[in-house]
């Protein structure tokens, strides 16, 4: 091969830029008349916020989303703050406080801002995006159900709802509080277990999640951080989320080994 030929085909200069039509391109600027509104729903589920647990207890279930939303404890469904807010934003859930006063969307936004209940605005954005795509999303390491042995003295059969929390032997409630409080905001933590859209999803046997989503804030993850998380998640693929100006980006950092070429 002549030097001249080779020089003109030096790697790089002949690589043309491929113009990729960026679907997210352009600013997210709306003209006020164009901003869509979700359709008002007349059939709403009802829930009561339990501040001690940091969860909403579903008091009246309407609609088919309950097979894939909320955790089951003692025959009742409890929703995390992001699940609650998602449904409230959709107009599908009416939330009230301990005194049965209706909580407005504004009040729920403020609850998110308080960061008391294991979530934050950014994690809500991730939740909302994935849910709107049809995925099934649960908080990482928070079981959908807890199986109970029938002969268990703490069994819930026949126990009136009002005493549910106390008679649970506190361990369930405590473990939930612990889990929620332990989701401290630091740069990198696993937040959600994600399952593909599935009409046959069962909370009693969800199987392994397809992905664990980790939320990033300050800076992209370092290699040690990624390795720690991989160890923690035991083989479930990790996706890393970054929320910025209302936009959620997802990244993979897959370990590879380039082939040995002939």
């Amino acid at each position, binding site marked *: 091969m002549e030097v001249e030929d*080779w020089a003109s085909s030096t790697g*790089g200069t002949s*690589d043309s830029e491929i113009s990729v039509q960026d679907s997210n391109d352009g600013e997210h600027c709306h003209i006020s008349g164009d901003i869509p509104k979700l359709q008002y729903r007349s059939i709403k589920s009802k829930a009561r916020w339990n501040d001690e647990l940091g969860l909403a207890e579903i008091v009246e279930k309407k609609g088919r989303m309950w097979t894939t939303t909320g955790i089951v404890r003692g025959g009742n469904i409890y929703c995390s703050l992001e699940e609650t807010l998602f449904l409230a934003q959709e107009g599908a859930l009416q939330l009230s406080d301990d005194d049965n006063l209706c909580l407005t969307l504004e009040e729920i936004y403020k609850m998110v801002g308080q960061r008391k209940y294991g979530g934050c605005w950014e994690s809500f954005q991730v939740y909302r995006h994935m849910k709107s*795509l049809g995925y099934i999303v649960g908080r990482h390491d928070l079981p959908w159900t807890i199986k109970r042995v029938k002969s268990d003295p703490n069994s819930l059969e026949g126990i009136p709802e009002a005493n549910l929390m106390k008679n649970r032997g506190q361990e369930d409630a405590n473990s939930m509080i612990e889990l929620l409080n332990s989701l401290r905001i630091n740069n990198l933590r696993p937040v959600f277990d994600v399952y593909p*859209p599935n009409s046959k999803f069962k909370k009693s046997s969800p199987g392994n999640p397809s992905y664990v989503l980790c939320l990033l804030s300050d800076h992209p993850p370092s*290699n040690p951080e990624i390795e720690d998380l991989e160890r923690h998640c035991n083989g479930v693929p990790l996706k890393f989320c*970054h929320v910025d100006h209302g936009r959620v980006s997802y990244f993979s950092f897959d370990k*590879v080994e*380039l082939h040995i*070429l002939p």
Partner: protein
Amino acid sequence: MGPRWKRKGAEAKALADPMSKIVSDLRTSLMLSNSQGILSGRSVLLGADAAQTELLSRACFGQPIITAEKDIQWFELSMEEGFYLCYSLRCIKIVGEDKRVKDEQQVWKYMTSKWVAFPVFFKAYSHLRMKNWVVRSGSQYGVDFVAYRHHPSLVHSEYAVLVLSKESGDANGRLRVWSDFHCTLRLCGSVAKTLLAINIDSAGKGVTSPSCLDSYEVEERTVTRWTPEECRENQIVVENRTK
């Protein structure tokens, strides 16, 4: 993203002409002629006869220097390329500014003094070269290297490589802030390359001699964007098929 061959027959041509053989022939030729590279700044200058010129071009080492000299073609090699030929392939000797041949240790000392990050960059370079990838400068794409499956005239580079080092908290300070992260990823996407982060762990072995390199650990990770929209569609399709 798989390999993008540049024209019909390119892949076949590459298969018929394995890089390992080209490099091996180059090595033999340089050894037989007792070739010497000249250290100059951050480059190694190497004179080549006609056969070596062809081999250096086919194996993609260095940049040709255009001169009027007829019998010798001069090439300018980067520090990684020069050290690879000298230390990894042991087929050239290197002469210093004092016109005396330097041993490996002296060359190493010279190179590490010119460039603090040389050890990790060289480790990444040699790691890929030893797997028979063609490794060239990535500065046109704002990365450290680009890696080709074969000669750049046959195939586009698949990987845009960044060298990251655990010890010095990421030797070149890349991918530490979001703007750099997004920028790099977008650029790689627009030129159809996968971003490859090569993480080097020098495991506290230091940089006193090139033999330290043997203990360095190398981990390859691709950095890619994930689109849950597309992924979900694939999964629904799979589900429908199994019904």
